[in-house]
C-alpha cells in the first residue's frame, strides 16, 4: 500500500465527505468502499483501528474518522487535509442554507431529489455491512463471524456503540482463529 499524494487525499475526502447524504454512517461506509475496497489505501485492520478510535473520540465521529485515516495515510498533514476537506464545504453549505432557509424549503424539487439520495444511502449502508464482514466469512469462521455480527447488531439496538465495540474487543482478546 502506497501513501496517496495530499491532493488525491483531499479529492477523496472532499467528494465523499461533502456529497454523501444520510449522516456519518453512510459516509463512513462510502469511505470504506473507496479507501479499502477500491483504492486499497487502507487495510481492513487500519479501517478497524480508525473506526474504533473515532468511536471513542468525543464529538463528531465522522470528523474523527477522517482525521484518523488522514493521519494513517499522510501523517499530521494528511489529518489536517482530510479534516478540512471533509468538513469545510459542508459547513459552508449549512451556513448558507441557514441564511436562506425559508427560500430553500420552498424548493420542492430539491427535497424530492434529497429523498432519493437518502433512500440510496440505505443501500450503501447495507452493502457496506456486507463488504466489512465478507473477508471473515470463511468455511472455518463463517458461523462465528455471523454470530458476532448478529449479537453486535442486537446489542447496538439497546446499548451504545461504544459499549458494543468494547465487548467486541474483549471477545477478540479470547478469539482463536480456526484454520
Amino acid at each position, binding site marked *: 500500500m502506497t501513501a496517496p499524494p495530499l491532493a488525491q487525499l483531499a479529492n477523496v475526502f472532499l467528494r465523499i465527505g461533502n456529497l454523501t447524504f444520510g449522516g456519518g454512517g453512510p459516509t463512513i461506509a462510502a469511505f470504506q468502499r473507496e479507501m479499502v475496497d477500491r483504492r486499497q489505501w487502507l487495510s481492513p485492520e487500519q479501517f478497524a483501528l480508525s473506526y474504533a478510535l473515532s468511536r471513542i473520540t468525543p464529538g463528531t465521529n465522522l470528523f474523527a474518522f477522517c482525521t484518523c485515516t488522514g493521519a494513517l495515510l499522510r501523517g499530521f498533514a494528511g489529518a489536517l487535509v482530510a479534516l478540512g476537506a471533509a468538513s469545510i464545504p459542508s459547513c459552508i453549505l449549512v451556513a448558507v442554507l441557514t441564511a436562506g432557509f425559508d427560500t430553500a424549503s420552498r424548493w420542492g424539487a430539491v427535497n424530492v431529489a434529497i429523498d432519493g439520495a437518502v433512500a440510496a444511502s440505505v443501500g450503501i*449502508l447495507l452493502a457496506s455491512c456486507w463488504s466489512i464482514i465478507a473477508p471473515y466469512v470463511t468455511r472455518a469462521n463463517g458461523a462465528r463471524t455471523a454470530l458476532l455480527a448478529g449479537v453486535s447488531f442486537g446489542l447496538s439496538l439497546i446499548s451504545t456503540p461504544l459499549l458494543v465495540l468494547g465487548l467486541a474487543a474483549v471477545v477478540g482478546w479470547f478469539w482463536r482463529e480456526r484454520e
Partner: protein
Amino acid sequence: MSLWTLYFLLLKATLSSFSGLASLPILREDFVVRRPVLTDRQLNTALVIGRTTPGPKGLYVVSLGYYVAGYPGASMAWAALVTPALLVVAMLGVAARFTGDPRVKRMLRTVVIASAGISLSATLPLGLDALTTPLAWVLAGVSLVILLRTEVDTLWVMAGAALVSWAASFVNLTRG
C-alpha cells in the same frame, strides 16, 4: 455573546457527546434556557438543515452558530466541531504501538465485525425514515445490488437515485 464564548460553549457541548445529536440537550440548555439567544424554533430549523445536507448530522451546530452570530458564528461552530477530532491523532500515536501484537490484531478483527452489526442497526432508523414509498424501497434495493455487483462510485449511485426520484415526482411516484 462574544465569539469566544460561543466557541467554548459549542466546544463544551461537542466534547460532551459521542454522536451527532447527543449534544442537543446541552446546547438547548446553554443557548435556549440559560442564555436565551436562540429559540426552540431555530433549534428545530437547525436540526432540519443538518438532516437535509450531506455529511454528519452534527452539522446542525453550524446552523446554531449562524443563528447566534451570523457567518462568524458559523465559523466558530465549525472550529468547535473539528477541534475534538484532532484528539484522535494523539490517540492513534498510542494505539499504533500495539497494533503488531497478535491479540490486538484479533481485537481489531472482532471490532470490525461488530462495526458491521452496529452499521446494520444504524440502517434501521434511517430506513424507517427514508423508505416511506415504494419508489424509495426500489431505489434502496437497486443501489444495494449495484454496489454489491459493480465497482461504481457511491456518489454516482446517490446522484442517480436523486435524479430518478426527481424525475418520478413528475408522475407522482414519490408519494406513499
